[in-house]
């Protein structure tokens, strides 16, 4: 496993040490009754997250992502191993952890369903015992940045999915947490809503240095938001490192899309590259190559010996494909 160097700025509150520390964490479900089968949802996972990091926690359905989040927040008790969130044991110090962390469970609203959105913010500010003036400023700012001014008077149940998700995130950030945990924040959102949400999160992190832990199915979220990825598979940590590193680990190929000046024969003989597709009588050709063995420049040089290049694009590996390969290889080991 690769562990890149993380540039970790000190946290806003100045508290030293990792913001999340998980050691040999195990969590089983069931198995108490005689008939029920014991299922291991989290299987000896260890990782640390430093203040200021942005980490994508990815994996298939049932891989153990949501269980890990519940363990981090003190909603579930570990079967074995240790959890420290903001330096605290969340089972013993749930309330102190809750003060410093903002959580969004993608498909479960934390807002007051039957009240105008504005009231959810008022109630949450009171729950976190925020100073009223400070709470007003913070709300106004979040509402402005997330462009929700028009929905403040709308009952939460009448918001669109995209509006609701932005409201959930504003609600989770209201008390200016050190750590923001998002469980599938973009699930079901349209392209534009996803885009706006990601832009907001990038901005929020740049301004406040909030640590981000994100579970998602959407590789776009990870690519745009995260400098580090954790891949879980069947409860085990399959990868911990950077996104490019992930692609390199599983040998995912990058893709060169080359537009040529005139119809050309299929370029099957380029060293280090593999012809994937030929379009428009050879006017556009797609060549895949392994970034670890050769470079885009080397491939281009070879191509230009054979034809005149008019335009080109490099496509990064499809991360879903990368993750699929990880699953496939670990399934092969079992």
């Amino acid at each position, binding site marked *: 496993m690769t562990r890149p160097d993380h540039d970790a700025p000190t946290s806003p509150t100045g508290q030293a040490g990792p913001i999340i520390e998980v050691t040999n964490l195990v*969590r089983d*479900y*069931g198995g*108490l009754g005689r008939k029920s089968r014991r299922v291991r949802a989290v299987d000896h996972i260890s990782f640390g997250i430093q203040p200021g990091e942005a980490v994508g926690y990815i994996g298939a359905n049932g891989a153990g992502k949501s*269980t890990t989040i*519940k363990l981090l*927040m*003190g*909603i*579930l*008790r570990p079967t074995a191993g240790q959890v420290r969130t903001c330096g605290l044991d969340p*089972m013993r110090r*749930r*309330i*102190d952890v*809750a*003060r410093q*962390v903002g*959580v969004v*469970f993608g*498909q*479960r*609203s*934390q807002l*007051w369903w*039957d*009240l105008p959105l504005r*009231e959810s913010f*008022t*109630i*949450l500010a*009171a*729950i*976190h*015992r925020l100073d009223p003036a400070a709470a007003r400023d913070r709300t106004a700012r979040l509402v402005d940045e997330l462009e929700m001014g028009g929905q403040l008077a709308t009952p939460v149940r009448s918001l669109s999915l995209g509006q609701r998700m932005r409201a959930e995130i504003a609600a989770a950030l209201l008390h200016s947490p050190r750590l923001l945990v998002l469980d599938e924040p973009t699930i079901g959102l349209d392209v534009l809503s996803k885009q706006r949400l990601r832009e907001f999160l990038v901005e929020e992190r740049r301004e406040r240095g909030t640590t981000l832990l994100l579970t998602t199915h959407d590789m776009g979220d990870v690519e745009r938001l995260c400098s580090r990825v954790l891949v879980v598979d069947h409860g085990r940590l399959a990868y911990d490192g950077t996104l490019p590193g992930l692609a390199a680990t599983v040998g995912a190929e990058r893709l060169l899309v080359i537009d040529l000046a005139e119809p050309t024969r299929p370029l099957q003989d380029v060293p280090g590259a593999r012809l994937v597709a030929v379009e428009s009588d050879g006017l556009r050709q797609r060549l895949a190559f392994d970034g670890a063995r050769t470079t885009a420049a080397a491939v281009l040089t070879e191509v230009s010996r054979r034809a005149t290049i008019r335009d080109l694009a490099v496509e990064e590996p499809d991360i879903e494909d990368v993750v699929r390969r990880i699953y496939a290889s670990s399934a092969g080991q079992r």
Partner: protein
Amino acid sequence: MADFTPYRVVLRSRMRAQLQYRTSFVTDVVGTLGVGLTELAEVLVIFHNVDVLGGLDFSAALLVFALSNVCFSVADMLVGHLDQLPTYIRAGTIDAFYVRPLPLLAQFMASDISLRRIGRLSVALGALGVALSIGDIAWSAATVAIIVLTLVSGTAIFAALFTAAGGLQFYVVDGAELTNAFTYGGAYAAQQPQRVFPDLLRIFWTFVVPTAFIAYLPAVAILDLPGDHLAPSWLAWFTPLAAVLAWLLAAGCWRAGTRHYQGAGG
């Protein structure tokens, strides 16, 4: 001093939400008013046919009915929604409570208030007024003290029953029927003259689920009735103690319930 602002803000918003839909609110109030009147009618019908039930005459029985109903209505209004817990568990919304920096039980208690129960409460208060004015009561400071202690402690006992039932529902998610046996069953038992029950049941409703303390024992003391071997009139003074014990039990049930949830998971 503890700062109750968060709870006040939540409760205020719950009330506003309920009052927002006037028609539906009024309908609900009429509904609980109907429930209260039906229960009262039961007492009236019985005493239309008999003069004495379980050693109590009509005014004494009405006092028992009124005390228990006032306490139950208030407790039901404040924490009756704890039996909605399985809904929260199934929908996963319970997790939202865990990630807020307040004690879980306090959050659940403050998460709703059933203003519609005001219908039933007003029937009970009316009955209490009538029972106290027609009853043969030698008024003294002690009488007043017993009435006040009873109303406060009785409400606390019912609230404890709801809380204990809530704690048990972490174990049996479809256990509303089971736990209602203690809450609504306890309410029914509380409003009966205890001597209509066989001794074993009376012991249960006095010393296990202490609903006899909510109305029957205080009524015996207020009206200065002779009492009997299971209900000496001095026992009424132990109503606050019964409330404390009920709350110890309730806190234990709740704690065990939340720990079970953290162990078993949603």
